[in-house]
Structure formats: C-alpha cells, structure tokens
C-alpha cells in the first residue's frame, strides 16, 4: 500500500517537473528557481511612492539587492471634510509606500519607528516567506530601528501591514500598503499604472482633544465602519485628485484592501476589466465586471480606455460608496468613439 503510494507520488512529481520545464522553455525564461536566483551588485535603495503613484516597472532587469526604508508614524491627518483623525502610517501616508520588486530580489527591510511615536510597530509583508512575514523581527519601540532581509520567491501583488497587538487597531488606523513582486521579465507593459487601497475606518470623538476623531474599538468589533475609503481619505481620488488616462491607453490598477474587516467588491462603473489577476496572483481572468478584494488581499485589474468620460471607482457594496466614501474617479480624455458608445439623445421637434 505504502509502496504503491510512493510510486504514485514519484510519478506525479516527475510529471510535474516535466510540465514545469516545458512552461519555462515556452516562455523563454530561466529555469532557475527563485530561491536559487542570484541577486548581484551592491544594494540599492528601492524607489518608493505614495498612492496613487507606483514606482517604475522592473522590466527585464536581473535580480538585485534592494534596501527598503520604512518609517512608522502616528500623525493627525484629514479623514474627511476637514475632520482630523489620528492615523498610524508607514512613511507618513495611508496607504503606506508602494514597494516594487521582482522575483529573486534580495530585500533588506529597515523599519524605523519615529521617536515621537507612543506605541511599538512592526511589519508583516505577505510577500515574505518566513515567520510572521517579518513581524517579530521588526517589532520596534519608539525611536528604534529594526531590520530583516528576505528573498522574494513568489510573484504577485501583496499586502503589508503592521502586526503589533492589537492588530485590528494598527490596521484600522491605516498601517498597510502594497508590495508588488513582478515575475521574471516584468509584467506586460501598459500605459498607466495606479495604486489604490481600500480601508474601513471606525471612529469616535476623542475625549481628550476636541474635534479629533480616533479609533473606536466597539465599532471595529461590530464591523460597523463610519468610513470606507480609498487611499485613506474621503475624496482622495475625486476632483483635482482624479486619476487620468487617454482614450486608447491601457490602464493597470493595483488595488489592495487593508481592511481590517470588510471585503471589497471593486468595480469601475462603465468599464469592464479586460484582465484580472485574481487575488493578485498568477491566474488571469478576463471580462470581469466586479472583482473581490479580500481584507488583507489585493488584485491587479487592467482595461483599455475606449470612450472619454469620468469613470467612477467604487466598492460595489454600494452603501459604502454612497454613504461612507468608497468612491473615486478615473478621468478619460480624448476623441469620442460613437462606434463603442453613443450618448446622442433623440430630441422631439
């Protein structure tokens, strides 16, 4: 019985190995496993960006040694309509800086907790294979800096977040961001790329500072947020902050969801996603209207802009968009395309 099982396993792995080789040859890529890829050269400081911007694509480059510097802060910021809220952040922004690397990169992550912080913070990167995603290794009291290194071995779009207890509070205050691990050779080229991250916020008036909102534990436990926001602020993608594209351009959105609790039903009104990297992984689905972005998860969506206009980005659990702020806009400019869409109304004379 046991022997039979072993034989079965062995033949299966051979079959898998053959398939693996085939795939690699087909794509014309190296057959070196990510673990064995060599990151050469001197360490370079990685380019980091705040939402909605993303760093330059990795393109065709070889694996590198990279240094990612993050600072954790506790700072007042505007959550909506001039109302201040005490955010906790990575690199002063919600969401935190976008990190862009490739498979095989060796990353040294330095996490400095600002001296003026009250609390300890750390980082758990879902792109990391290892205990806690780095959380225990990076637990930093105010004023201290910690460091750990990892090798990116799985391509995909991943969430990172603070995992210091009480975790829901650290995430609820905005301590999350995205790290993109591009496959060898990089993602296919597109014309525009943007970084959007949803989060649910639970607020109450501070008893100590008038007018200031702070985290409400009871509402968080009940999962009843006051705000569901893109990029940590109501209106962060509206008005002058709309993201933009031109007719004929391809757009790629890196969409994450920090949570801490809600799952997003991400939708762009008036667009159909040509490609969706499901849950930020390697499976690409096509012709999708609304895609799920789990709390602590992410998705990559791509579409071509065919018709000018303003396209509304929402969590299609629509009370969140209509009442709680989960709304943004993509402004597409260029020539009208009546073959695809014709808004001419028939007028009676």
């Amino acid at each position, binding site marked *: 019985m046991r022997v039979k099982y072993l034989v079965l396993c062995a033949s299966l792995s051979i079959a898998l190995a053959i398939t693996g080789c085939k795939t690699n040859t087909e794509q014309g890529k190296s057959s070196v496993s990510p673990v064995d890829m060599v990151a050469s050269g001197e360490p370079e400081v990685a380019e980091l960006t705040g939402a909605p911007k993303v760093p330059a694509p990795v393109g065709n480059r070889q694996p590198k040694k990279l240094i990612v510097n993050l600072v954790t802060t*506790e700072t007042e910021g505007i959550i909506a309509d001039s109302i201040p809220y005490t955010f906790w952040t990575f690199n002063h922004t919600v969401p935190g800086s976008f990190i862009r690397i490739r498979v095989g990169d060796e990353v040294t992550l330095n996490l400095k907790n600002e001296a003026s912080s009250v609390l300890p913070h750390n980082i758990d990167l879902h792109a990391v294979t290892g205990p806690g995603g780095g959380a225990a290794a990076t637990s930093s*009291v105010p004023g201290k800096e910690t460091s750990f290194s990892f090798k990116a071995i799985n391509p995909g779009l991943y969430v990172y977040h603070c995992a210091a207890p009480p975790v829901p509070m650290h995430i609820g205050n905005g301590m999350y961001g995205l790290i993109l691990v591009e496959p060898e050779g990089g993602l296919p080229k597109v014309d525009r790329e943007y970084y959007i991250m949803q989060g649910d916020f639970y607020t109450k008036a501070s008893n100590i500072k008038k007018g200031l909102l702070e985290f409400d534990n009871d509402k968080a436990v009940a999962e009843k947020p006051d705000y569901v926001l893109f990029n940590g602020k109501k209106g962060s993608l509206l008005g002058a902050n709309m993201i933009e594209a031109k007719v004929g351009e391809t757009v790629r959105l890196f969409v994450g969801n920090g949570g801490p609790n809600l799952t997003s039903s991400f939708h762009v009104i008036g667009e159909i996603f040509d490609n969706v990297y499901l849950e930020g992984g390697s499976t690409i689905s096509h012709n999708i209207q609304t895609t799920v972005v789990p709390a602590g998860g992410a998705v990559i969506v791509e579409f071509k802009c065919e018709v000018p206009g303003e396209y509304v980005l929402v969590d299609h659990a629509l009370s969140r968009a209509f009442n709680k702020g989960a709304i943004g806009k993509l402004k597409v400019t260029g020539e009208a395309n009546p073959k695809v869409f014709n808004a001419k109304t028939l007028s009676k004379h």
Partner: protein
Amino acid sequence: MKHFGFIAAVWMSIGLMSCSNQENNPVEEKSFADHFSGTVQNTRVNTAMAYIPGGEYKPFYGSDTSLVKVEPFLLDERPVTNGEYLDFVKSNPAWQKSNVKRIFADTAYLHNWSSDTTLPEGANADAPICNISWFAAKAYAESIGKRLPTLDEWEFVAMADATSPNARSKSEYSDRIIDLYLQKNRQFNPVKHSPPNYWGVYNMFDLIWEWTDDFNSILTTGDSRSGQYEDKSLFCAGGATSATDILNYAAFMRFALRTSLKADFTVANLGFRCARDTVVHLNK
C-alpha cells in the same frame, strides 16, 4: 548580628506603616534606604509608597483558569522623576551619560540631557525620567533599597480605576486608558497632576510606559510546558489566542511594547517606578 537586628527593626516599622496604610494612605518613607546604599548612593528617597495587599488575579496572558497570586508589596505612588534621577547620577557617576557602559544602556541613554548632570533644556524636574534602560532603572531602585515591580505586580495595580481594585470588566476602563495612550508627549508633564487610583497610586497610564523587573518574561520564562507563551502568539492575530481579555486593547499595547524591548533600550516615553517587598512577605 547587630546589623541584622537593625534591619529587623526597620522592617518591623515598615510593617507597621504598611498596616496603617490599608486605607490607601501612601507610606511616607524617610531616609530608610540610606542604610542600604552600598556602593550606589541616592539622597532623595522620600517617594511615598502605596501598600498593595496583593491577591489573586487573572493575568492578561495565560489560560482562563489559572490565577496568579500577587503577594503584598509596596509600590511607589508615582514614577521616578527627572529631578530624582539627576540626584542619582550626581551620586553615581557611573550612570552619567558619558560614563555609562554601553552594554547597560544604548546610545540614546539620556541623549537629550544638556550635560552629564544637567537636565534637558526646559525639562520639568517633576516630570518622569525617560530615556533610561532597564539596567539603569534597576540600579536606581537598588540604590535606595528598592526594586522594580514585577510584571504581575504592575498589572495587578493597573486593574484598578479610581473607585475599584479591579475595573477590567468596565467598558470605560480600557477606553479611557486607550484615550490616554493615544496622546503624544505626555511624558513631559509633571507627576501627580491627575487623580490617583483605588490604591492611591498615580500616573499608571497617563504619562509613560514603565519598566517592570521581568518585562520580557512573557517570551522567555512563561510556562513553556504548555507552550502558551511562545512569542509568535503575540503577533498578528496570534496575540488573540492566548489573551484572557480580548477587548482589553490597552493591555495588548503594553504587552506589545514590553515584548519589543531589550534591557539596554532607552525610549523617549519609557520610565519606571520602584517597588519593595513588605514585612509580611519577608517574615515568611
């Protein structure tokens, strides 16, 4: 022999004071500790101490059913201040910032002091001392015949609000503490400017984090047989699996801080207060 007799007498007098303190009157300490100064000197030792009768309590981390016994002890009614620490380093040059051995305190030790024996510009002498390591806090305590409170002792006292010894079941208890914890730069305020708790102890939450003698015991000396205290349990959702009071976010914050500390660390909002055994304990 003579020495022993003296110590016994002192302890007895403390014991008397302790008894009279059962109504939450802090014990006024005289120059008792001068006799225990040994190689370290401290002249200002008059911090009043509150008598804590001890008892059984449910630790924040551990199994639901196991209660921990806390013996009676004395706890400083407030944190050690800048002024007191200044006196300490004047009497003990080894703990001045330019002399301190690096293994006992990191480079941020008293970094904001204007000189070895000058407080930071604008610092309030009555504000709690911060930027000191566990080694430094321990040395200070020993210099006046005291010690640091254990984690259990500190948390036992921390259960109290103004009117009850154990307010953990009150929803506003944790909320109030979190409100305080969210305020920055509280450590620059003077001690004893807010009301005391049930035991007559001030400033447990509103100014600073505090060192405890066994601050990182949750990682190293917990009940390893049961595996309940593995350090991984403190991170991410794992922290929830071994906590007895999952809604006590304030306690999570304290434990998060403690488990991130090393004994040589000095932090801008981390100070300490001292404790001491009572006669009751010593006579056993």
